[in-house]
């Protein structure tokens, strides 16, 4: 009972998943959550493949689905009670790429700085750059107006700049 679009979907999924996984890890701040999010997103993307494949950037479209799901889960009170991981981003840094060669590299620094941003700011910044998504698409994904997206991105980048500046000044 194979679906008619299995081959096309699988080919896209194999190419897009590493990027979605990186996006999800930075967004969720936790490797395990990120893998769950990506897997859930792939399943959802399969069922909406006619929409995903028709998008200008299928990976960007999937990223908006992923961000939307993440924020929805974050809003869930039950989820909040069960998980308190995002507030402890060191796990993402140390357990992910930060452990590479035993040092915190520039990417991990940025990841740690991202983890310190409010959820909406972090999502807006990442969606802006994961596939150069327009503000309208980001707004739809995170549930706000396009003008608010610009505000989130602006404030998020300002916070990142401040956080990274502080680290660079620290001996």
């Amino acid at each position, binding site marked *: *009972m194979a*679906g008619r679009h299995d081959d096309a979907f*699988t080919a896209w*999924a*194999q190419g897009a*998943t*590493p*990027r979605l*996984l*990186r*996006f999800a*890890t*930075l967004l969720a701040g*936790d490797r*395990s*959550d990120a*893998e*769950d999010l*990506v*897997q859930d997103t*792939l*399943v959802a993307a*399969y069922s909406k493949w006619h929409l995903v494949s028709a998008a200008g950037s299928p990976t960007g479209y999937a990223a908006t689905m992923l961000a939307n799901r993440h924020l929805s889960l974050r809003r869930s009170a039950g*989820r909040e*009670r*069960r*998980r308190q*991981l995002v507030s402890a981003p060191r796990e993402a840094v140390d357990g*992910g*790429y930060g452990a*590479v060669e035993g040092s915190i590299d*520039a*990417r991990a620094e*940025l*990841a740690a700085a*991202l983890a310190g941003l409010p959820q909406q700011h972090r999502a807006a*910044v*990442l969606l802006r*750059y*994961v596939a150069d998504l327009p503000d309208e698409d980001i707004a739809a994904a995170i549930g706000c107006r396009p003008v608010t997206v610009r505000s989130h991105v602006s404030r998020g*980048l300002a916070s*990142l*700049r401040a956080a*990274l*500046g502080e680290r*660079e000044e620290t001996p």
Partner: protein
Amino acid sequence: MTDADLERRVREALEPTAEDLVRSPAIVDAAMHRVSTTRHPGRRRILLPAAAALAALALAGGVYGATRLASNGTSSDPATAAASVAQAPSVLEITCEKDRIVVGSATVAASPDGVHLRVTNRSADPEMYLGYRPAGPSTGEQAAGGDRVDELREARVEWAPGAYDLSCQRSGGDRSQAPARVVITDPGEHYRPGGLEKIGCWAGGPRAEVSWAIGPSRETTAQAAVDALIDRMHPTTPRLAGEPAPIGYVDSPVQTWLLRKSGAPWVTVRVEALSGAYQAGLDTPCDPYVASLSGQREATSPATPAR
């Protein structure tokens, strides 16, 4: 730091790492496994909140359903309807026409491996779906969902016995057509009633602790496939033990196994018989696992009420 520098660093951070590249194939495999599971007619089920104690009512609902169908023109009295239940065919003929659904009989008898359908699409719409949902009181195990008609044709589904409303729907969600009510009977007692709760597994909860990207294993026996799956998880989830769960259709090529962690139900495994092999994949996490995460409850016993 300039704006350009910051933008460059964010873009660099979004580039996949070596670990991402290594982990991704397993995530895709697991997602496709879930897709295939969901696409399977018998697996696209929603466990309704009604208690299993309503099984007797469901049987009454089945007879009621047949009676009601009969009153719509198939036959004229409850006795005739009851007789049709006893003589139910083993294959249910379903035809989706442009503006209505036609079923070959008001009842269908379950087979040892499930319920057999023969579905024909005469609507000229390739996006036509067969929708199904429990009619009347539910056993709590009955399936609900929809599958593309053109993918069904000769299909075996694992719908639990009981009364169902079937309808042909376009993918846009058109539900204007009147449903057809069909009763699945089980004169041969092929269906082992009781959902996951019967084996002490209260479905639900997050999947944070175990890496859900663990793909399915494939071996020559069901036991070996489950053991191989356990071996893959061993580094993070020690002391797992697997056992077949006596639920669903006895000869179904898809069987449920239960993995216990430190003696408590932990996660179910879907074991599928393929040509010359068995494939085992993680399926539904059990509530004690959630309890172990939150630390707010002790491990759930089978007597714990459903949420």
